[in-house]
């Protein structure tokens, strides 16, 4: 596929000027997650619709980075590409220095499994599994039968401790359908953290929760992030959420237009 080739070498001068998000150091070993020159276009009927016009960004170790922008700005598309779920039309994504889209699908899947934790707006738990089973799902995917059986107690213990810490001690055996939204999202956070990934990607994690519940869930997410020194990429359009982050990127029309590490616009 064309995107596996290093198509992008120098910025296209015809592009509108943009604020460089970071050093733009693609492949920098110190960064858990960087992107360089990400373009993504979709075929809509006869037309070709470009959603991302060459996005460079960097998630620094241990930081909380908020990605903001109006709907349609391309946040979700970028997130899918950074989360290795969607292949960019052009550009590269480096996960801990590894060019993720040049890897085999199996290696990329392993990268998703071990290095990236996802928290979705709609929780995305498997309805047939209990809270505890949902939380240990990443380990089930990672290990083969015998290895998993050997280590099952270890993972169950770990997931159990997290769920108890998140206030779900009486809900471990419940199915998602029996849990409230806030509870489901806490299970999803435990699932995302099970394999201790260095990167956490959260897509509007409180977007589907009422304000009070959202606050509590956010507290849990941020506490865990701080404690584990995980790099968090938080997609939101809620400014209160963004304010809890160390750095904010603003997206507009498929480009990162502002970086709060430059003076914040008041």
């Amino acid at each position: 596929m064309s995107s596996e080739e290093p198509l992008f070498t120098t910025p296209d001068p015809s592009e509108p000027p943009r604020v460089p998000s970071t050093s733009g150091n693609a492949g920098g070993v110190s960064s858990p997650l960087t992107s360089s020159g990400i373009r993504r276009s979709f075929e809509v009927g006869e037309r070709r619709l470009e959603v991302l016009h060459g996005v460079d960004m960097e998630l620094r170790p241990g930081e909380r980075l908020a990605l903001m922008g109006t709907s349609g700005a391309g946040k979700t598309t970028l997130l899918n590409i950074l989360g290795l779920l969607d292949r960019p039309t052009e550009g590269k994504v480096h996960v801990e220095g590894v060019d993720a889209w040049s890897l085999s699908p199996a290696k990329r899947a392993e990268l998703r499994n071990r290095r990236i934790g996802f928290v979705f707006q709609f929780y995305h738990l498997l309805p047939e599994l209990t809270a505890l089973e949902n939380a240990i799902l990443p380990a089930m995917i990672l290990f083969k039968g015998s290895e998993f059986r050997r280590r099952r107690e270890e993972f169950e213990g770990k997931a159990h401790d997290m769920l108890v810490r998140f206030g779900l001690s009486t809900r471990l055996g419940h199915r998602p359908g029996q849990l409230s939204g806030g509870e489901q999202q806490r299970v999803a956070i435990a699932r995302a953290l099970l394999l201790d990934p260095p990167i956490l990607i959260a897509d509007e994690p409180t977007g589907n929760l009422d304000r009070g519940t959202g606050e509590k869930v956010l507290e849990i997410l941020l506490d865990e992030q701080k404690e584990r020194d995980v790099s968090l990429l938080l997609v939101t359009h809620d400014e209160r959420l963004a304010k809890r982050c160390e750095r904010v990127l603003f997206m507009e029309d498929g480009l990162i237009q502002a970086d709060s590490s430059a003076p914040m616009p008041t």
Partner: protein
Amino acid sequence: MFRTFLSLRYLRARKTNWIGMAGIFVAVAALVLILSIMAGFLAEHRRTLRGNLADFVIQPRYTQSVRLPNGDLIDADHDVGAMIDLIESHPKVVSAAPQLQWYGLFVPDGAKSAMERPMQDAIQLVELIGVDVEAETGTSDFAESLTREYSPKPPDGRIYSSVERVDDAEDPFAPLERSGRRTSRPGRPIIVGEQLAYLWSLRKGQEVSIITATFDDGGSLNEDAPANSRFEIVGSFRSKDNEMDQRRVYMDRAELRDFLQDSRGWSAVIVKLEDYERDKLQVREELWTQLNEAGFLGAPGDNPNEFRTWEDFRATLLAAIENEKSLMGIMLSLVLVVAGFTVFALLSMMVTEKRRDIGILTALGATSWGVMVLFLLIGLWEAVIGSALGAAVGVLGAMKIDAIERWLSSTFGFQIFNRDIYLFDHIPSEVMPIEVAKIVLGAVVSTLIFAAIPAWRASRLDPVDALRHE
């Protein structure tokens, strides 16, 4: 690990999957049950169709002077002993016996009453079989047929008669002892088949006539020889082959020879092998070659009627049943295909319903191969559980089919299996483990093929699409 775990969980949680499993269960159970019964019928028919036929029946078409291995020149036409010695010298042959076979018209109470009988088969063609009791006993089932229990019930329109078995199976052709006075010389002793006896309401001790034609040594019709003689029924036999039980009439070979005034005295040699099923082809080939070299028979294959196995006499019927069994297997395999379609439909539905789950699994690091295996496994469990249960029920059913049929018949008040048609007193069935294994394997493979399509589709799902907002 998630594949096994999740596939079992999905199977348990989603009852619709059980429909597919039930389909496989029914298909496998039906296949095992029906094919076991067909195999039973085939085996039973092989047992009954064989009747009193020996493993091999050798009927030389013409014979001439024969030079034996020791150099003696003999007249093969008259010295059947030399041929039997040669056959019996084969290590896999148990014994051989001569028979004299001829045909006749059977007339029970004189021609007049025969003509009055309204039945269409009033004139009965019979095979006259002249046997040497001692040699015959070791070579065919003749002796067993003399003492075998009576058939369960005569076919429609035929009535029980008082015909009985012979007085002494060791000496079956001995004339009946009579206390009463007797004016004429007793007829030649014959043993008739049970069905013939039923048909004509024959009694032991009854005198009957048999009309036949004889030939002189030159091969032309012998107009002077007695062709009509009186016979006395000294007993009956049951070979279990209906046709044989209606057509065969056994006599002492010497008596028949005397009746026919036949100078040769034999027309066939029957042979019994140590293990017919194992050795039939090899021994037939070897014996035929040896007999040909000695001059008793034509070259092997020249005239197939000179050297026949018992199956050759029943080839058409045996092939028909075998054919019926294959057809039944093919038809029932279609049930399996339908079950496969059910699995296909249900899994396709499930893949559509589970789009989001597939996206989640992909996001959490499952490969597309892993997703495909997950759905294949659901199909596999359905196939394994369904066919294992089906095989178990099918085998159990085949083993107990007779009791089940009797219970059903008595409970619902109509007869499902008419035991009179085949003259079987039970529904035969024979479970063949290899056949069962083949059916189970076929069910699993065909289900997997059907499951592969939705599983492949699941693996091609775009996780981004799958995870798109609810």
